[in-house]
């Protein structure tokens, strides 16, 4: 069973800090991941990262009822990223907006390379990502949690995709921008990887960076992914044993 009240276990800093919340430039916010948190879904996961609270349910592989979406040689992977109305400062009107439509699309593309879709022709695998509380970095949190939920559902995968952002705040390239840092920040670079090969399945860059800064941010985000990857695996082990 999950407890939503955050227990603030801070990750250790490797460099002296000048960030508002005391983190070093390459520190993640405190996080925790849990698998198997819902009753009805075939698989589920819950993730907290700083103030973010994200729940994911997976249904499938199951029959696809909409014929025009059906693929004769593989399953369709449909991700739906959705924010609860109470998850942000000003109440969000229910239903998809342009932002959530774009995030749903790139989330699907980020996860797809890892899933053996070809084993389930004419089927669908549905991933429902619900942001219960948002504090910067929800798209990455959603992808990281979705992989755990897919594993919990027993969907066969090449790897557990994991995502993390780096960015530029106060003139410095730093890992995992908080909402406050993102608001006044110069750039945000969300990245998803398949940790076994290091291949990149999601990459966006939003803001102004030199190519050197971009490369630094990319490397930092990949390092952040590796830390979260460990927590993903622990969550699955905790649920199923080794």
């Amino acid at each position: 069973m999950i407890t939503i009240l955050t227990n603030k276990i801070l990750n250790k800093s490797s460099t002296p800090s000048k960030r508002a919340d005391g983190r070093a430039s390459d520190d993640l916010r405190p996080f925790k991941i849990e698998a198997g948190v819902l009753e009805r879904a075939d698989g589920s996961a819950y993730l907290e990262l700083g103030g973010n609270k994200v729940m994911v349910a997976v249904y499938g592989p199951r029959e696809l009822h909409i014929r025009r979406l059906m693929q004769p040689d593989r399953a369709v992977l449909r991700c739906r990223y959705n924010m609860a109305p109470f998850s942000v400062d000003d109440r969000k009107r229910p239903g998809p907006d342009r932002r959530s439509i774009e995030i749903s699309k790139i989330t699907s593309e980020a996860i797809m390379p890892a899933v053996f879709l070809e084993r389930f022709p004419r089927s669908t695998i549905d991933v429902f990502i619900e942001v219960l509380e948002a504090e910067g970095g929800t798209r990455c949190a959603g992808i990281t949690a979705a992989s755990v939920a897919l594993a919990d559902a027993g969907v066969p995968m090449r790897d557990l995709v994991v995502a993390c952002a780096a960015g530029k705040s106060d003139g410095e390239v730093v890992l995992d921008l908080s909402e406050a840092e993102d608001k006044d920040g110069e750039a945000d670079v969300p990245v998803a990887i398949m940790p076994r090969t290091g291949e990149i399945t999601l990459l966006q860059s939003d803001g102004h960076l030199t190519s050197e800064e971009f490369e630094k941010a990319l490397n930092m985000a990949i390092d952040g992914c590796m830390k979260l990857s460990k927590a993903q695996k622990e969550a699955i082990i905790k649920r199923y044993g080794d």
Partner: protein
Amino acid sequence: MVIIIPEIIKESLNNLVKNGDRADDRSFDQYRDIVLETGVIDKAEGSARVKIGKTQIMVGTKSQLGEPFSDTPNVGVLMTNSELIPMAAPDFEPGPPDERSVELSRVTDRCMREAKVIDLEKLCIIEGKKVWMIFVDLHIIDYDGNLMDAAVLGSMAALMNTKIPEAKVVDDEVVIDEEKKIPLPIKEKALMCTFAKIGGELIVDPSLEEEQVMSSRISIGMRTDGSICSMQKGGMQPLTKDEIIKAVARSKVLTKKLMEHLPQNKQ
């Protein structure tokens, strides 16, 4: 999607009840385990997570300044919205609220409103011009039956947990003090008890399996004093007057017990 329940399951659940039993061994007047936490979402102004058995709802409230309705210029507005998001069950689909979801939010809304749970007059800031609007959003994340009782319990708890900024009128302008948060003016408490009719009997807090075979349903909203604030029959079969009168009597006892789950009573 049409869900077909095999006749054999219908029959077996009906027979169980006829013999005074239920699939999960509960008595007819017994709720499943209830877990209620409040203050679970920091960005909400009030929030609650409620579980009744395997059914789980996240409730969050938000306040917003708005105009009152023209026929009630001196009272605030309470708005309840629910989403049966596809996370909660394999047959829930994305899209605008369907009739089940509309009924759920409207019944929850009426129960809170008619019980006068909030002193809405205290949410008026400038008569006819500015009032507080309180949004209650029900996010159903796990569906195993009896959404109504869970929705009302979660909404009541979230409202009791809600703090809104202080609003003052200075020179005809509304000044909001985000630093000073005050609780909502709660003046009553109301909860809801739902009975399903199976095998000729009314059993409280139906599980999803029980809902799927029930012939009808009656939900009764009550205040602490045992008075009725709302009622809603559902389902494809009728009920007798006797059954309804008896359900009202039973819900008086059950509501009192349910109230113990609300925050104050715990302390």
